[in-house]
């Protein structure tokens, strides 16, 4: 479903990862590992199309990629339901399946549905940010540290949703994380792909 070959991606015009190759089949998860600064976020942003690739090719069905990072895009002045509904509307999914109560229950947000986004705690915001993934109907998820500020119970809930709802329905995911999600998934250590310090990419690359 997702295949990456010979990918070189850059941060601020300097290549950080070179010649990354992997593929993910429907129903599979790939966990990205590596020390801080190795380029996990850069790789995920490149895959999601938020920044251009220096080299290589990324292939997945068009309009099926979704990106989620620590910035959840939650509006403080909108309620939990309104936040979710906005993202569903933007993506043109019509709440057929899963329904709103199902999504709220899956992410333990039922009691919070009429609260304003600004009054949620960090972990609750995170759960709402992850619930967005359930309503936009995208198959290929690029998740950057999805479990930051979640408690153990919520991590398990998220892993359950990913396994039972997303992967079971033919979706796939690439996840950068430092913790054990409890998913049986192959891991890809990015350390061997680190770019050589003197590799190309002039200073003007950032502007082209």
């Amino acid at each position, binding site marked *: 479903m997702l295949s990456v070959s010979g990918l070189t991606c850059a941060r601020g015009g300097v290549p950080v990862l070179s010649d990354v190759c992997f593929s993910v089949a429907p129903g599979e998860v790939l966990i990205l590992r590596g020390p801080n600064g190795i380029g996990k976020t850069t790789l995920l942003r490149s895959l999601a199309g*938020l920044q251009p690739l220096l080299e290589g090719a990324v292939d997945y069905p068009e309009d099926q990629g*979704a990106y*989620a990072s620590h*910035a*959840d895009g939650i509006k403080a002045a*909108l309620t939990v339901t309104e936040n979710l509904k906005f993202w569903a*509307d*933007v*993506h043109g999914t019509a709440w057929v399946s899963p329904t709103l109560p199902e999504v709220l229950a899956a992410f333990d947000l039922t009691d919070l549905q009429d609260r304003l986004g600004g009054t949620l705690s960090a972990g609750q915001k995170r759960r709402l940010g992850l619930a967005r993934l359930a309503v936009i109907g995208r198959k290929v998820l690029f998740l950057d540290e999805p479990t930051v500020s979640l408690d153990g119970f919520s991590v398990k809930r998220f892993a359950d949703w990913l396994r039972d709802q997303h992967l079971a329905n033919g979706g796939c995911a690439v996840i950068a994380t430092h913790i054990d999600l409890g998913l049986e998934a192959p891991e890809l250590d990015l350390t061997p792909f680190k770019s050589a310090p003197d590799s190309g990419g002039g200073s003007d690359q950032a502007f082209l």
Partner: protein
Amino acid sequence: MKALLLRDLRLAVRAGGGFGLGLAFFLIVVVLVPFGVGPDTALLGRIAPGILWVASLLAALLSLDRIFALDFEDGSLALLATSPLPMEGVALTKATAHWITTGLPLTIAAPVLGFLLNLAPQAYAYLLLSLLLGTPALSMIGTFGAGLTVGLRRGGLLLSLLVLPLYVPTLIFGAEAVRRGADGLDPTGALMLLGGITAGTFALLPFATAAVLRINLR
């Protein structure tokens, strides 16, 4: 696009800083002018078109930096960029939402303030019409400026410096249309040019805004 427009309008109403702020600023600037130039009604009537247009320009400028900055900070902009909505559509929608929360209230309030400045009676229709034609261009050009400066710290001042020179043609023809209306001359030419500027900005700037947003999101 409809969902984004409705969300932006709802945020403007709930979070404040939308409808009220620009309008109150407009009111205060226009009310301050007679204190500055003195109670000479003939003089006030003569400078009223220019004052009203400059004040609405500044009022529109006031809320520009919020167009993309808030969405950039909370990550919504990156999420919108990966959504099926094209960035051109995002830019157009943002400009429209800005016009509805700023340009439209200014247009509606301007005749009342024209009365304060002793504007000639025959000029009111042209004041309304020129603002209606011209303020959408202010929002669209401003959205482009906001896209250029999104992500910069203290980008607000830079935004003003970038955007105000681009407002000059709109200001010239907008104020000229009202002045000609007040003098009993035919303002059609100025109004048509004003409409042309607005149409041109809406045709071209969504693409430019989308391009600068993509660069700023990297």
